[in-house]
C-alpha cells in the first residue's frame, strides 16, 4: 500500500514536470519549420519571479496576437512570422542568457519585449554585441536609450518623461507637500532621484522613502513619512503586490486617499482587474497613470486590437499589451520595407519608421540623449471614482486637453 502511494506521488510529480515542459515548448513555437520558410521574431519578458509574471504573460500574449494577425494577412516578405518567447525572470543574468539563447540557438532576426529595467539594461548589451535589433516594450530606465546603442529602440515612456509628467501634474493642481514611497528597483530609485531633483529646482516640499519589494508590511514606512507631516499628495512608485499593499495599508491607516492627501499610483498594476479584489474600497479616488484609455481616442487600430485581445485571452489588456502588440507591428513593417532580414538593414528601416500603432504614429528620434530611438507615448492621469470601476470607465483628469473630469476629492 505504501509503495503504491509513493508511486502515485511520483507519477503526479512526473505529470507535473511533463506538463510544464510541454507548455515551455509550445511557448517557444514549434521549431520544426526550417528558418527559410519563416521569419523568427524573438520575444523576451518576465514569466517567473522575481520579475512580474503577469507583465511577461501579457507581453507574450499580445506579441503572439500581432503575429497571428500578420500571418493571417499573408505574413512579411511572403513568409510567416514565428514567435520565440524566452523568460527573463526580470533578472539581469537570466535576461542575458535568454537573449543569448534567442540569438545563437533560435537565430531570431529581431527581438522585442522586457518589462524590467535592470533586466533590459543587461539585455541591450547582448543585442549590441551580436548586432540584433531590439525594441524594448515596457522598461522605463533612461539609460536603456541614453547609451545610444543603434540596435536598441523603445516604445515605452522613459523615466525622465514619467517624472516630468508627474511634476507637470503636481504644478497643474498646485500640490505643495509631497511624500514619495518607492520600490528598490532601477525604476523606483531612478524615479525618486529624478523627482527629487525637479521638486528641489521648483522649491516644492517633499520627503521620500525607498522600500524593499519583498516586504509586505509598509505600515512602518507610511507612518514614518507622515510623522508630524501631512502631505497633500502621496506618490506610490511601486509595482506588483507592493503597489496594492501600499494603497490598502495607507487607506487602513487613514493616510490616503483622503480629503487632505491624494494618492497617485505609478505602476501599471493600477489598471489590472486584480486591484479591486486586492484593495477593495481603498482604491476609490486613487489617481493612476496609463498611456491608454478608450476615453482618449488615439488611433483606428486601438479598438480592434483591444477587442481581439479580449476575445483571445478573456481579459482586458493593460497598456503593456498595447506596447507588446506595437513592437511586432513595427518590426514587421521595418522588415517589409528593408526587404531583408539583415540586421543592419532592419535597423536602418526602423530609424525611418513612420507607422500608425495602437497609440499614435510611431517615429524614432535620432538625437542622442534619453529620447534617442525612443518613441514616447502619451501619458494619461486617471482617477477611480467608484468602487469596482473598470479601468476603462475611470475618468481622465490630466492632461487637460483630453481630461473628462476634474479630480474628485473624498469627503
Amino acid at each position, binding site marked *: 500500500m505504501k509503495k503504491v502511494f509513493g508511486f502515485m506521488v511520483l507519477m503526479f510529480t512526473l505529470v507535473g514536470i511533463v506538463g510544464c515542459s510541454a507548455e515551455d515548448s509550445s511557448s517557444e513555437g514549434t521549431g520544426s519549420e526550417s528558418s527559410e520558410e519563416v521569419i523568427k521574431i524573438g520575444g523576451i519578458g518576465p514569466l517567473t519571479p522575481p520579475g512580474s509574471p503577469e507583465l511577461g504573460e501579457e507581453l507574450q500574449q499580445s506579441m503572439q496576437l500581432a503575429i497571428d494577425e500578420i500571418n493571417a494577412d499573408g505574413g512579411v516578405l511572403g513568409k510567416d512570422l514565428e514567435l520565440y518567447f524566452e523568460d527573463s525572470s526580470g533578472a539581469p543574468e537570466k535576461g542575458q542568457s535568454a537573449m543569448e539563447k534567442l540569438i545563437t540557438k533560435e537565430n531570431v532576426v529581431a527581438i522585442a519585449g522586457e518589462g524590467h529595467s535592470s533586466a533590459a539594461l543587461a539585455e541591450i548589451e547582448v543585442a549590441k554585441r551580436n548586432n540584433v535589433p531590439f525594441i524594448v516594450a515596457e522598461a522605463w530606465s533612461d539609460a536603456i536609450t541614453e547609451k545610444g546603442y543603434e540596435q536598441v529602440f523603445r516604445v515605452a515612456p522613459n523615466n525622465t518623461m514619467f517624472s516630468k509628467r508627474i511634476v507637470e501634474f503636481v504644478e497643474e493642481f498646485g500640490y505643495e507637500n509631497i511624500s514619495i514611497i518607492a520600490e528598490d528597483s532601477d525604476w523606483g530609485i531612478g524615479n525618486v532621484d529624478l523627482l527629487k531633483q525637479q521638486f528641489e529646482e521648483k522649491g516644492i516640499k517633499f520627503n521620500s522613502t525607498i522600500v*524593499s519589494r519583498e516586504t509586505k508590511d509598509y505600515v*512602518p514606512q507610511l507612518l514614518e513619512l507622515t510623522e508630524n507631516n501631512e502631505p497633500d499628495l502621496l506618490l506610490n512608485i511601486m509595482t*506588483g*503586490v507592493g503597489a496594492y499593499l501600499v494603497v490598502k495599508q495607507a487607506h487602513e491607516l487613514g493616510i490616503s486617499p483622503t480629503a487632505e492627501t491624494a494618492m497617485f499610483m505609478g505602476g501599471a498594476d493600477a489598471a489590472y482587474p486584480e486591484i479591486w479584489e486586492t484593495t477593495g474600497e481603498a482604491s476609490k479616488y486613487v489617481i493612476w497613470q496609463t498611456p491608454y484609455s478608450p476615453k482618449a481616442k488615439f488611433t483606428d487600430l486601438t479598438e480592434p486590437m483591444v477587442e481581439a485581445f479580449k476575445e483571445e485571452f478573456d481579459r482586458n489588456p493593460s497598456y503593456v499589451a498595447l506596447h507588446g502588440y506595437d513592437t511586432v507591428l513595427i518590426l514587421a513593417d521595418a522588415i517589409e520595407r528593408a526587404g531583408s532580414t539583415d540586421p543592419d538593414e532592419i535597423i536602418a528601416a526602423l530609424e525611418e519608421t513612420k507607422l500608425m500603432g495602437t497609440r499614435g504614429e510611431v517615429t524614432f528620434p535620432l538625437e542622442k540623449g534619453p529620447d534617442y530611438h525612443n518613441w514616447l507615448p502619451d501619458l494619461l492621469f486617471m482617477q477611480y471614482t467608484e468602487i469596482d470601476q473598470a479601468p476603462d470607465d475611470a475618468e481622465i483628469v490630466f492632461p487637460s486637453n483630453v481630461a473628462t473630469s476634474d479630480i474628485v476629492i473624498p469627503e
Partner: protein
Amino acid sequence: MDFLVPLLAQLTNGLIIGFIYALMALGLTLIFGVLKVINFAHGEFYMLGAYISYIASRMLGLHPIIGIIAAVAVVFIIGMLMEKALLTPIYEDKVERKDEYALLITFGLSIFLMNGALVVFGPYQKSPEPLASGVLDLGVLSVSSGRIYAVVLAIIFMAATLFIINKTWLGTALRALSQDRDASTIMGINAKTLGSIAFGLGAAMAGAAGALLAPVFLVFPIMGVVPAIKSFVIIILGSMGSIKGAIYGSLLLGIVESLGVFFLSPSYRDGYSFLLLIIILLVKPKGLFGGSQWNN
C-alpha cells in the same frame, strides 16, 4: 509626546506582525523538534493555506471562517501525506545521507508547489473574502480589523497547539519522540504515525498563518518565501526545536524591526532581523534558549 506616539505606533505594528510570525515559526520548530528535519517547503504550506481559504470563500462562497478552518484541515492532511510519501525513506534506512536527503526533498517540494500554484492559479494576486472590513483605532495607531482578527486567531491557534503539546497524550508522545526517538519507540510509541502527525501539525500552522494573512497581505504563488525566511531566522535565534524560543523570538523580531525602523531607517527593515540574528549567534551560539528542547 511628539516622540512617543510614533514610537508606540511602530511598536504596536511590530508586535502585531510578531504574533503572526510566531504561528508560522512554531510550526517550523515543531517539525524540527520531532522529525529533526528542516522543512524548506514551510512557506509553501503557508501559500497552500492561503489559496485554500481563497477557494473556499471566493469560489465556493463559504463564510471566511470556514475557509480558514478548511485551510487548516486540508493543509494538515496534505502535510501528513507529504511526510508519508517523501520522508519515509529516512526511517527505513534507504538513504545514506539523511539530513541532506530531507533538505533536498523539502526544497524540491517547495519549488514544485510554487510552480504548481503558478500553473493552476496564474501569477495574479488574489484576496479571499476578509473576515471583517474597516479599521480599529488603537489610539496611537489605526489597525485594520483584518489584522486584529489575524492576531487573535493566531493566539488561539498557538494556545491550542501548546495545549496539545503540554496536556495531551499525543503531546507527551511527541515530546518523548523529540527527546529520544529510539527509546520512545521501545516504549511502544508509533514513531512513524506520530512523525506524520507532527509534520501535519506543523504544516497546518503555516497553513493557518497563510489563511489568516491572505486578506491582509494578498495571495500569490511566491507569497511564502519571505515569511519562511523570517521563520528560519526566528527559530535559529530562539534555538531550533524550542517552542518558547519560537514564540519569544517572533515577538523580539517584531519589536527589533519596529525599533530599527523608528531609530534608524525604515528602508532597511528586513535587514534588522539578520543583524539581530548575527548578534545573538555571536553571544549565544545555541540561540536564546540554547540547547533546551521541549520541556521549557
